């Protein structure tokens, strides 16, 4: 069977983050490369957060997706450098996050400046800018916990990571 790199990317569009099931691994920006050599598929993925338990599930999901498509010759390599950043998340992914009720990453200044004023995160539900941070750490490593002062709804914020 001859398969193209484009078809592999398409297949990967159908593998989703188990914790944020609207985002595909392609939207998330963790697929760093896809290549085909001598009918073998080579994929490089990069972890979001090192300790993120979703990474193992994602790798297994890619494997079963390949098995479903009768792709047997492949190698998945994990690379940590260059380190993943939310800047690699696709525009489509950001829109899907918001529609799902998670505020997408905002353009934040470098975290190493302590006590900088927290960035404004618009409410994904009512679009108000009047929101507050409840905690920098939320239900998963990639999310913070916010609340909207206008509609009062709590929401997750996919933290800017760079």
């Amino acid at each position: 069977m001859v398969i193209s790199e484009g078809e592999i990317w398409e297949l990967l569009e159908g593998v989703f983050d188990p914790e944020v099931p609207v985002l595909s691994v392609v939207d998330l920006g963790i697929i760093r490369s896809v290549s085909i050599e001598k009918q073998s598929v080579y994929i490089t993925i990069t972890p979001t957060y090192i300790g993120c338990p979703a990474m193992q599930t994602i790798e297994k999901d890619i494997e079963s997706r390949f098995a479903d498509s009768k792709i047997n010759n492949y190698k998945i390599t994990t690379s940590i450098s260059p380190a993943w950043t939310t800047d690699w998340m696709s525009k489509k992914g950001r829109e899907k996050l918001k529609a799902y009720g998670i505020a997408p990453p905002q353009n934040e200044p470098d975290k190493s400046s302590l006590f900088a004023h927290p960035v404004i995160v618009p409410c994904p539900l009512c679009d108000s800018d009047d929101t507050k941070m409840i905690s920098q750490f939320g239900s998963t490593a990639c999310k913070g916990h916010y609340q909207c002062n206008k509609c009062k709804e709590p929401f997750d914020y996919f933290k800017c990571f760079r």
Partner: protein
Amino acid sequence: MTTKEALYKYVLRLGDDSLILGQRLSELCGHGPILEEDIATTNISLDLIGQATLFLEYAGSLSNEFKTNDELAFLRLEKDYLNVLLVEQPNGHFGDTIMRQFLFDAFRLPLLTKLQDSKDNTLSSIAEKALKETKYHLRHSSEWVVRLGDGTEESHHKIQESLNTLYRYSHELFFVDEADVLLQQEAIIPELDDIKSQWSQTIKDVLEMATLSLPTNNWKFEGGRMGRHSEHMGYLLAEMQYMQRTYPNMEW
């Protein structure tokens, strides 16, 4: 001592710092003082254990005795762990947990920043990755030091006591022996002078905002870097190693 032996020791030291502090923080899972902090401390724990995974995986590739990161994490004896004494200190009350974290994070941030320039590609990649998470950790611990220090009379008193106790362990973060010197000469790891001055500046700035003062007592504890641990370490290891010792080679 060869470069490889020195590197093994150094990578173990960094990995053990992450592992043991990660293990300590994981004890708070379900026991945090408030829900948000329960989640925050366990998130930080997860990040640290993730860092330990990378460091110990690398250490395993440099070792003749231990092959995998799991073997290194779970099957060594107490004297073979090389973490600083600071990270094995008990969680105590929340002020103790936060102060221990703050002293550590304030060191890790400049260390990892410099380590990105390491001539060793694996070390520089791990540093690059871990640095991003560490920025969040330092911000979190700093904010709590200020909130507790500049909070009520009771919270101020309690975290000042935490500082008085834990500051004596912070000196060991700057421990240097022949392994470090060798690696510094080969530009594999950074010199500590700049890192120490950045650390001192962060401590000074945050303590000032928190209305806290550095203890005048100059007593310093060390030993962890050479495998000599405090009485708390055995209990921590007993819990951490239990599953692997009881069911050898088990995997999740």
